């Protein structure tokens, strides 16, 4: 028997023979095995992948659902919050809009009504109107000078005919000054030493105080005396020419404020302190009240007050009007200056 080649099985012939015989080729078997294995592996991998995919998908879906739920919850919360805070957010806006609209409507209607009323009122300055032609105005004009001794009828009216109103009015100034004092005055501490707030206010003020502004100081040097003298003139001539306590006092107050601005608190404090304010206001108002009480009492009891009226037109005339004008002037000047000083640094 002849020797068989070791690779006989793999020869072409043998392979052909086996093919014809229908036998399976060993290599194919391997290949098939390999293929099958590969296929199995592949399918396993695919399955794995698929499982992973499904898992991932599931996870994703879960997280998505979670996210979605979260989102929904947040949405709901926001909605709830919105509803809770409706009054603070949208409500305020809505209310403000409504408020503006209504206030504009009310203002316009009030303006319209008042304009309509003004159109119906008697024309200004025309004679024969109720306010112009009646016995009140007539007596003021015809007999005013004779009865009050004041050439300036307005002064005669406010300080003699209707002195009670003016008594109240000068106390309005006083009470306004006191209210500003209550609100803004910064006081010394209980131990008499300045408190922190006081020191701060002083420090603040020092920053704003013009330091040695030459032009301002020189101008003020000439202007302040003129202003104050003019104010005194307006007060003293209140019963002779237009003017009087209120306007003259305002002029003097303006002069004092100018002095303060030019030279600072230190210079002004030499002659105008809180004590001066108190003394001047107190004396003026007390004199005013006492004098008017006397004159009201005499008038109501039909007694002679014994105060001479003098000749109309001279400075020393018209009875109580001149001293009262001086009192009102003092109060107005002090009040104006005090307002300014207190608003600036919380003290005089």
């Amino acid at each position, binding site marked *: 028997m002849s020797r068989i080649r070791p690779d006989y099985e793999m020869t072409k012939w043998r392979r052909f023979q086996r093919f014809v015989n229908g036998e399976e080729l060993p290599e194919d078997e391997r290949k098939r095995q390999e293929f099958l294995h590969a296929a199995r592996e592949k399918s396993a991998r695919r399955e794995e992948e698929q499982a992973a995919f499904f898992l991932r998908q599931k996870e994703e879906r879960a997280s998505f659902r979670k996210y979605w739920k979260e989102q929904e919850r947040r949405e709901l919360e926001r909605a709830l919050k919105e509803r809770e805070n409706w009054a603070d957010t949208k409500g305020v806006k809505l209310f403000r809009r409504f408020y503006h609209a209504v206030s504009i409507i009310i203002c316009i209607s009030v303006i319209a009504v008042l304009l309509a009323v003004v159109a119906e009122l008697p024309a200004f300055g025309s004679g024969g109107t109720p306010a112009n032609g009646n016995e009140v105005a007539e007596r*003021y004009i015809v007999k005013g000078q004779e009865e009050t001794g004041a050439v300036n009828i307005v002064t005669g009216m406010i300080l003699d005919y209707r002195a009670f109103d003016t008594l109240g009015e000068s106390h*309005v100034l006083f009470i306004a000054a006191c209210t500003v004092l209550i609100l803004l005055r910064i006081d010394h501490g209980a131990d008499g030493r300045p408190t922190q707030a006081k020191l701060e206010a002083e420090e603040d003020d020092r920053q704003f105080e013009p330091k040695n502004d030459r032009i301002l100081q020189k101008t003020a040097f000439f202007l302040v005396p003129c202003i104050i003298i003019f104010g005194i003139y307006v007060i003293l001539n209140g019963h002779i020419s237009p003017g009087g306590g209120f306007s003259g006092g305002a002029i003097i107050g303006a002069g004092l404020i100018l002095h303060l601005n030019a030279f600072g608190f230190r210079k002004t404090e030499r002659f105008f302190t809180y004590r001066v304010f108190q003394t001047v206001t107190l004396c003026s*108002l007390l004199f005013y009240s006492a004098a008017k009480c006397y004159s009201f009492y005499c008038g109501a009891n039909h007694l002679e007050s014994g105060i001479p009226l003098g000749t109309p037109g001279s400075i020393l005339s018209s009875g109580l009007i001149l001293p009262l004008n001086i009192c009102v002037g003092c109060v107005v000047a002090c009040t104006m200056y005090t307002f300014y000083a207190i608003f600036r640094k919380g003290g005089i």
Partner: protein
Amino acid sequence: MEIVKSFPLFNIVICLICGVLSSVLKPKQAKGLSLVLTGAAGAMNAAVLAWVAREGQYTYMMGHFPAPWGNEIRVGLLEAVLAVFFCSIMFLSVLGGEHYISLDIEESKGNLYFTMINLMLTSLLALIYTNDLFTAYVFVEINTIAAGALIMIRNNGHTLVAAAKYMIMSLIGSGLLLIGITILYDVTGHLLMVNIHSQVAALAASGEYQLPLTVTLGLMSAGLAIKSALFPFHTWLPDAYSYSVPSSAAILSSLVSKGYIFLLFKLFYRVFGFDFIVDHKTPNLLFFFGVAGMIAGSVMAIYQRDMRRMIAFSSVAQIGYIYMGIGLSVPMGTIAAVFHIMSHAASKSMLFLAAKGLSDVSGDSKDFSDLRGSGCRSRLAGAAFSVGAFSMVGIPLLAGFTSKVYFAEAALSASRGKMGIAMVALAISTILNAVYFIRAVITIYTPNEEAASMPENCHLPKTMAAALVCFIVLNVFLGTWSNVIEDAIRIGLSTFS
């Protein structure tokens, strides 16, 4: 001329002088001066009242010139009764709260508080006695500024806000009043109430200047309604009453708003004439807002956790009662309104002081949860609070009951529509009053274990105890002797216009 007739003048001038003097005194001296002054003013006005009750009303010339040229004050029975009453309420309020004034206010500004008190008294007396519209306006100014100062003198943030609110609302009211006075002067040519009255009657007959007159009436009524905190304009009130010093709260609630209401009475009766007012349907409007205030004020009071805010909102309701009384446009309604001015003033100032006494023994808290059992800790304050609360609810023998009876009586004589509304509103408002006031009384008498460590029956300051006792007596007096006062008001009103 008898010296008594000059007392109103002396009163006003002395109050002005003391107001100015207080600004340079030490707080203690100013306090003493203010108390003496208020007492003296009350005594003088009582003398005037006795004189007027005997001899009848009179006008007093302020100066050498008779009325349309000079100023004038008019003293009638109604004016004198109210002046005495206002002085006594002022005295008791200052007396009751004086201990807290020195605690709550900076030492250096204590004297200015009494300046404000004295000038407030001046302005109230002048508003009561004046016979001239412009004088009234001048003293309205003093009144407004003094009230603002009384609110903000206790210098914490709340009071500043409250004072700012008060000033804004009140100045709008003043502005409307002033515009009204100028228009009225323009069409009538007078400032004296009597002369304006005759001129208005002449104009109404001739049909001239109808629009200006109507508008003036509206402006002035609206201005005074704003100033006296009628319902839709009440927003400044709760803060102002609940954060200020107890004396201020008592004075503001019982006197300041009442001064304006009395000025409104003067406007209606002495300036325009009540027929003119009824023709222009003003009472209907006031009636509507009054009824709305009665209900709304009480409902808002129920929601409050803070005792003083609750009392403040109750004031809104009570002001509503007064306006409802005017709005009924029958004589009895006005009598009831004037009586309610007095009974509300007597009860409300007592309530504010007692509330301070109660919160004093509860760690200075105004919250109901802390106030539990405070009535047992401070018996007098608890008793005073209960009397005030019962009076406001309308328990017989107390002032509030009588005024409610008068309101009901007035409603019966009013027109049919108003009668129904007024009766129903009275009933609802009384129930609502009971809801919050009785709850408050129950709260202060419910024992509280947590606060057991607090001392039993703490002693109130002596002055406050005295003031509270006087207030209780005053309330019972108003409730039981009401017919004397009602007669006085009736006679006063019949000679008023």
